[in-house]
């Protein structure tokens, strides 16, 4: 079943261009109105239970799209249906079905313990005391909140705070959660913990995840599908593992010698040296031009090899490549 259904979504921002050389009064009356198209005619849908990564370079229109989907800003054109509801028209009804986490902003009450924020949000979503209590228990087990649930939020570490933030946004059992850069600023351990949680809520609580992030690890480990957006347009919409297959064109081969390399042979077409010295050679191979088998045959013939390591390009460099191309 389709949970999110977007057709031809467009958002224009208007702004007044001022003449730097003229005064304030002049600009007040004579400023030229300009239009910037932040999101340009995008169409896609998301099924219930999916985990989607919605990524793109800074200023690509990610946040604008999330804000339109969650009912914070009006679209200029196009239609949005979330579980059959139109965000702007049915804002209140919609609010019961979605949760939002913005990595750079907090919804928690900073001087109060997390439970208080949860009671406040629970009451806001019209839950009764018993129900809130039960939900807090569930969430604190799921998110491991017990160690800090009664401390004022401002005393928590960033990782704990993010977990609190996410638990809070799930208090009313939403069907869909928007995560806007949830792992920003966290250390590796905290990031890993959070990712495992996302997978858990996606699989166990059947919550649909709509994630934006600059961290490719987030995308790779959490999301089954990747939508890449740039200049307001969707450029790629594919399952994450297909993205790897389709766009990973380069492999790097690292070779160590038995004793030491003395000469460096000319390479075949599609291969190039990244670095070469007597202890190690690194070669980049474009698999569109030459296949791996040929490369290996060539190398074993020409070089005195002790060990050989073949690496696929990381998702990060794939995405970097895509950004640079589009």
């Amino acid at each position: 079943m389709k949970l999110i259904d977007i057709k031809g979504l467009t958002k224009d921002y208007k702004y007044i261009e001022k003449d730097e050389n003229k005064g304030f009064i002049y600009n007040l009356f004579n400023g030229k109105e300009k239009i910037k198209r932040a999101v340009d005619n995008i169409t896609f849908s998301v099924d219930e239970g999916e985990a989607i990564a919605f990524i793109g370079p800074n200023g690509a229109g990610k946040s604008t799209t999330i804000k339109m989907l969650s009912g914070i800003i009006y679209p200029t054109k196009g239609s949005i249906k979330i579980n059959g509801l139109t965000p702007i028209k049915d804002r209140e009804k919609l609010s019961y079905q979605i949760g939002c986490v913005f990595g750079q902003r907090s919804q928690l009450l900073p001087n109060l313990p997390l439970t208080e924020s949860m009671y406040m949000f629970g009451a806001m979503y019209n839950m009764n005391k018993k129900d809130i209590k039960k939900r807090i228990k569930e969430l604190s087990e799921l998110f491991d909140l017990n160690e800090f649930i009664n401390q004022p939020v401002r005393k928590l570490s960033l990782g704990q705070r993010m977990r609190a933030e996410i638990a809070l946004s799930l208090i009313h059992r939403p069907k869909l959660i928007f995560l806007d850069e949830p792992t920003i600023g966290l250390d590796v351990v905290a990031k890993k913990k959070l990712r495992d949680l996302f997978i858990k809520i996606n699989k166990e609580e059947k919550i649909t995840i709509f994630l934006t992030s600059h961290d490719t690890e987030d995308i790779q480990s959490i999301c089954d599908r990747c939508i890449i957006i740039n200049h307001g347009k969707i450029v790629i919409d594919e399952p994450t593992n297909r993205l790897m297959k389709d766009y990973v064109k380069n492999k790097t081969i690292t070779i160590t010698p038995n004793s030491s390399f003395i000469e460096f042979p000319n390479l075949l077409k599609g291969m190039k040296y990244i670095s070469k010295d007597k202890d190690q050679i690194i070669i980049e191979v474009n698999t569109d031009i030459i296949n791996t088998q040929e490369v290996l045959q060539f190398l074993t013939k020409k070089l005195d090899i002790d060990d050989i390591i073949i690496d696929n390009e990381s998702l990060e460099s794939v995405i970097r490549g895509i950004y640079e191309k589009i």
Partner: protein
Amino acid sequence: MKKFKFSIEVIKIFMHNQIQDKSNLLLDMFNMFSRCFIVFLLYAYIFKLKGGVVNGVDYKTTMYSMFIYFCIMILNIRRIDQLIMNDVKSGSVELYMNKPVSYLFITFYKTIGKGLSSFLIISIIGTILMITCLGVPNLNLSIFIPSFIITLILGQILGLIIYSIVGIASFFIVDNRPIHWIVDKFVMILGGSYLPISMFPPLMKKLAYISPFGAINFATSTVYDSWNYEFIKRIGLQIIWILVFVFILNIIYKKAKEKTMINGG
């Protein structure tokens, strides 16, 4: 009913927090008593100079009026405009746009919750001290008690609305503090903060009566004799002002929301 339950929940949470934070309560108390002390000594001196009665009002009545003003200051609903301004500046106002309860209501409840416990504790202690030091005020209790409660609540609602408008102005201008200062000074002076209402010159008396800024603190007039025959009119005025400012708040809040929603803030 749903909304009412929510409001009680939020107010309770913030009150609870306020009680736990002892340093705040102590500061509020020190502030209150030092102010009362200074003003009471000053006016004791002045009333003695003038033979005990100024403009037909005695020292005790005047001091009760100022005491009520200081208590209302502890409730401090004026802080709502700073709360709104901070939320607008930090962008967290957006986070509330897709919640089932309006941002304005959430902020109203927060504001009330933040001041209510200090207000109740200090007013009760203060009233006991006042009665011990100055004696029971000469009041017609059957009128005073109900009308005082009504006018206090209406006045604070009116205050919340007016200061919210000042807060929402920060959607449109960079810095709303100058507006805050000016509104604040009107409210403060016309409420009888430093100069008791009974000592107002005629023009100020009129302004305090008919302006919305004066109406916020009508509770400070409840101890005067004149209250007994004009309280209905005054409460009526407060209701009219509330209606007028709710109307203005609605328009300006709608404009602010549109600005955020169409132009992303």
